[in-house]
């Protein structure tokens, strides 16, 4: 692999990683605070994408606003999921959460078919991004650069939100010790609803960000979710910086895998997941 290819594929990989990162961030926060493993997280990605399509193309709202609205719509759905469903099974075994959210995967997949039809939907690329810049002598999509930028910006915002605001403090508190936080007068139920819809928002935003380059289909939710699990596990369940690193690893794996081990890319990702779980179950950044 030449140096140029290394750089170019690397950048491609990083842009891939950003979608995964936004998704994994949501899953990680939800797990860290609520202890929920949300199988429908990928479906929220899908819904985000469809919403963005509708706002941007059908309702002709401008692109930026569409992204925002799509993310908020995702948050709304997330809050409903938590407030009226998940809330009632926290005391049950982990498996019940998985089954419940799996039910939502099925529901959302068909909902997409009902509202948007079975055919793949993709809006036109907004003019601003509709060009390429030359990197190592080859055209590189401006949109992918934008995605990288957004991903990093989002990380910064997340960090500010969680480490520098009192709300973030509350979240981290209840993540580390629910009872304690409750005792300190935090309204846990409300916090959970907010946190879960925040997580859903991140997923929906990732999907919305994806629409111009990744067509939305009713099945896309299940195809992304496993990747997100891999990322979250590699980073260490509930470990946000870890999720970022995990996303980078998988993104780059996919990008370089095409060149290095084209016939084993899938196997390799699962192998990494297994090795991390075996030797660093708390994740690469989680310590032993």
């Amino acid at each position, binding site marked *: 692999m030449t140096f140029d290819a290394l750089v170019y594929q690397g950048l491609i990989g990083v842009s891939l990683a950003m979608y995964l990162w936004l998704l994994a961030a949501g899953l990680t926060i939800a797990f860290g605070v609520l202890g929920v493993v949300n199988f429908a997280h990928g479906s929220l990605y899908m819904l985000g994408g469809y919403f963005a399509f509708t706002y941007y193309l059908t309702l002709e709202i401008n692109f930026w606003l569409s992204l925002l609205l799509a993310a908020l719509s995702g948050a709304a759905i997330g809050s409903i999921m938590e407030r009226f469903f998940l809330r009632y*099974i926290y005391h049950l075994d982990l*498996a019940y959460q998985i089954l419940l959210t799996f039910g939502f995967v099925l529901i959302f997949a068909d909902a997409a078919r009902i509202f948007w039809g079975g055919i793949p939907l993709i809006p036109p690329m907004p003019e601003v991004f509709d060009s390429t810049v030359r990197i190592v002598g080859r055209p590189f999509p401006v949109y992918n650069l934008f995605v990288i930028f957004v991903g990093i910006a989002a990380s910064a915002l997340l960090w500010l939100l969680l480490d520098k605001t009192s709300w973030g403090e509350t979240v981290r508190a209840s993540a580390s010790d629910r009872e304690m936080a409750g005792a300190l007068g935090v309204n846990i139920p409300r916090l959970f609803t907010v946190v879960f819809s925040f997580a859903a928002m991140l997923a929906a935003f990732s999907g919305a960000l994806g629409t111009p380059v990744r067509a939305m289909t009713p099945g896309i939710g299940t195809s992304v979710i496993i990747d997100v699990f891999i990322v979250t596990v590699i980073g260490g369940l509930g470990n946000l910086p870890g999720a970022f690193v995990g996303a980078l690893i998988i993104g780059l794996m996919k990008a370089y895998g095409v060149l290095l081990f084209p016939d084993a890319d*899938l196997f390799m990702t699962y192998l990494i997941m297994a090795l991390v*779980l075996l030797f660093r179950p708390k994740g690469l950044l989680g310590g032993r």
Partner: protein
Amino acid sequence: MDGWTTLTKTRLETRLALAAGAALAVALLAIPLFGDYVIWLTANMLILALFAVGFNLLFSFTGLLSFGQAAYFAIGGYVCAKILLAVPSLLLGIVGGLLAAGVAALIIGFLCVRHTEIYFAMLTLAFGMMVHSIIWKWRSVTGGDDGLVGVPRAPLEIPGVLSVDMADLDRYYYFVLVLVSLGIYAIWRVVRSPLGLTLQSIRDSESRVTFSGLSVRKYRLIAFTIAGLASGLAGALMVPLGRSASPAIANWTFSAEPVIATLLGGAFTFAGPIVGAFLFYIIKEIVVIFTGYWMMTLGIIVVALVLGFRGGVVSVVQRHLLPLLARRRNDTGERR
């Protein structure tokens, strides 16, 4: 949670048990009267039931949530298919698939039982998907995404003893019925054997088991292997039925089926997964007859069941219906 309450009962339940047990036996034996489609469906339900009961030995009776059981189902199925394509001997195929799955479970389990809870679930998922990607990629052996097709439903032969042709679906159905019953009966014996006591004790208090002088990991591995064997047998039985093996049976979505069956029917009960397996198929069958949007309908039902029947159907029956009946007949003697 509470495995042992499910092992105590009332005289009322005994009578119901006798009646219903007889009814079930008759129903299952009479299935062929309903024609090929029902035979086919029931055979599939029985196979899922065995698959789920194996899963449940891990989940309810050892406290481990495996999310990669499809791997052993698929290994059992593919090995059986390979054998049948080479030598047309049903018994050889089934036994081969069973053993292969057992060995795989022993090896992978050895690595997986280091963890519990979500870490265990994720680890089993990872290994499960590795098996899936191998099956998908190793085209020369597994036929890639086309899978192995045209597998003969070979006759059941024990040289010099017997030879039964399996071309008829109802014959094969009875074969499945017998093996599934044996498999489930074996696991049911395990559950109330010393081994079963040990496993449930591990579920309830790891440290106490350790300080009774037992290696917790060793017994977890044993449970994992038994579950793998059950999955393998189920997979091996599935292949001659459909006369093909496809990678879909190794995918994580297929690992979800025993989970769904178990939770629908009732975790922490022995019969739960069996009831759930039947429910799962029946619900879907009914749904697809009425709507093309079966996914949404099934999803809504699943959500409703999780929220409404938290303990699953069986335990709801146990906890609510039976006590009501019992009270009406002032039948005491419940230890609960």
